[in-house]
């Protein structure tokens, strides 16, 4: 029998059926209740002919339903795809078509649902969660969430029959990519299980964990929080927005949270707009941070505000399921600025351009191997071959070891923009901006930002005689891109720096 995350959840259900698994506002869903919904989803998918490894898209915010659909899909032998809920219909359709998804579970509240449903292949099964807004009829067949979970006694899950091998597909996570080249990171049951177990080991999570979670589950970091907490039998308390930071901290106090995870901008917001020391946060045992480097000054401010709390600085990539390294909290002050050492089961090397290991103090590319390294990008052997070589993931991140082999990130060798923990492809934004009539050329880069790490700037060469304003460009982006991908700054210029062969020299734009 191949062990999967479903088995870990089942063990939690057996150990603590009446413990709260997921809390969302007034709803407190126990492990027993969650398992019933997981079983219902698995039964529904099987009855409706879901094939082994067939893909199931989930377009729904963090919720008990999200977890039930994810685990129900795995239990039915399928492949779960958490979809970015702020993505536009064009991207969603692109991912669903690219992954050849068989089913989509979508929130009735999603702003793109109407267009998505209208353009979705008629063969794809659609399940709508929640009540559709008035005047928003969906003109194609669909089923409702109530129908999926109607049976009080759904068929039992055949735990032995979930996966035929540990390399069976379990999940996709779409990272940034262009329309013609979407990047679907494919993860096996082994990948998910290995990373979950490693994280449980170094974070030392216990069955009485209560985490207040603001990170989206469709994103690899949020995904890891879902899996680790369900595996350990803990409670995930959902706060689905950071717009009102002090509500999040108040929730931590009220729910006696034991943990909290964020990206650097999460902590920057909490530090700037809340008075952490004025809340009763004695129950909090740890904070964890990943999703880009956090300024050491903010680490120190957190430590000062919450001196009893262990702070884990971590580093990872979607291509590594989620996590690669962590800084043991007891060495936080001594190794400030480091993202630590490999997590259990992972090996890290820092290599030069020729692939040779770099000595301490010398910058090279972080390369990693372990059971958490992805199978590859879906239907994209060329890009897979560029980043996974002989079982080693080339991360594109530049770093050096110190004398104790602690890793210090020095920058990125790739052109990807990292903003608020999100990885954004500049090419995707350029592709959208190029659609506008008045644009002759466009180059997009990430520029430094105190709160978000980077923000997006677009350099535009206009066509002569066609008027084009910055606002028009941003409005076009708003229509076609998720809001976090809209350039904050637009600069009109006469030319873009290019190589002799005409390729954009993006790093020179940064120097302008």
């Amino acid at each position: 029998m191949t062990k999967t995350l479903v088995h870990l959840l089942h063990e939690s259900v057996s150990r603590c059926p009446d413990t709260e698994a997921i809390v969302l506002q007034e709803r407190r869903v126990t492990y027993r209740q969650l398992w019933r919904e997981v079983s219902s989803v698995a039964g529904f998918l099987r009855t409706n002919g879901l094939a082994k490894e067939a893909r199931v898209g989930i377009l729904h915010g963090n919720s008990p339903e999200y977890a039930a659909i994810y685990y129900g899909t795995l239990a039915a032998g399928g492949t779960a795809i958490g979809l970015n809920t702020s993505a536009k219909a064009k991207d969603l359709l692109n991912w669903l078509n690219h992954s050849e998804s068989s089913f989509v579970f979508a929130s009735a509240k999603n702003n793109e649902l109407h267009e998505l449903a209208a353009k979705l292949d008629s063969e794809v099964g659609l399940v709508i969660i929640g009540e559709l807004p008035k005047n928003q009829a969906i003109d194609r067949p669909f089923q409702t969430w109530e129908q999926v979970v109607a049976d009080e006694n759904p068929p039992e899950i055949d735990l032995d029959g979930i996966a035929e091998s540990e390399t069976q597909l379990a999940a996709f996570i779409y990272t940034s990519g262009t329309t013609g080249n979407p990047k679907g990171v494919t993860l096996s049951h082994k990948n998910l299980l290995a990373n979950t177990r490693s994280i449980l080991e170094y974070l030392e999570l216990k069955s009485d964990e209560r985490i207040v979670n603001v990170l989206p589950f469709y994103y690899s970091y949020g995904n890891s929080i879902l899996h680790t907490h369900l595996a350990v039998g803990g409670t995930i308390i959902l706060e689905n927005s950071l717009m009102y930071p002090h509500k999040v901290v108040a929730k931590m106090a009220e729910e006696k949270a034991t943990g909290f995870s964020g990206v650097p901008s999460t902590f920057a917001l909490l530090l700037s707009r809340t008075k952490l020391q004025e809340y009763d946060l004695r129950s909090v045992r740890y904070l964890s941070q990943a999703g880009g480097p956090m300024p050491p000054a903010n680490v120190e401010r957190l430590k000062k505000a919450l001196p009893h709390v262990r702070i884990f600085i971590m580093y990872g990539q979607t291509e590594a399921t989620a996590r690669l390294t962590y800084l043991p909290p007891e060495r936080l002050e001594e190794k400030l600025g480091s993202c630590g050492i490999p997590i259990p089961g992972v090996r890290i090397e820092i290599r030069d351009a020729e692939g040779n290991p770099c000595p301490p103090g010398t910058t090279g590319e972080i390369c990693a191997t372990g059971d958490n390294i992805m199978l590859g990008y879906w239907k994209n052997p060329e890009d897979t071959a560029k980043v996974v070589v002989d079982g080693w993931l080339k991360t594109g991140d530049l770093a050096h070891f110190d004398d104790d082999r602690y890793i210090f990130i020095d920058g990125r060798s790739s052109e990807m923009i990292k903003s608020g923990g999100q990885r954004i492809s500049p090419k995707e934004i350029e592709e959208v901006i190029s659609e506008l009539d008045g644009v002759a050329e466009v180059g997009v880069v990430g520029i430094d930002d105190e709160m978000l790490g980077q923000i997006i700037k677009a350099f535009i060469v206009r066509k002569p005689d066609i008027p084009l304003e910055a606002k028009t460009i941003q409005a076009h982006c708003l229509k076609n891109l998720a809001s976090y991908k809209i350039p904050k700054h637009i600069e009109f210029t006469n030319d873009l720096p290019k190589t002799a062969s005409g390729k954009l020299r993006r790093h020179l734009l940064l120097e302008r």
Partner: protein
Amino acid sequence: MSVETKIRDYILENYLFTDDQSALENDTSFLDKGIIDSTGIMEVIAFLQEEFEIEVEDEEMIPENLDSVNNIVAYVTKKQKADQ
């Protein structure tokens, strides 16, 4: 220019990138519609503090005060009265 007009214009200009007044209803939730995110709300607060010379306290950062044009107008009006 009224408080409402100033707030509407600011949201339309900076988050919807349009001057089409029909693009924004006064009771639309910024959060539900994905119009403003967690960093955007900080910019909105900076705008309110500068434009209306009010101090937005951390505890006042709640949806009831900030999650729609109507809510902001009511909040700003209340703050201005309290300052008089």
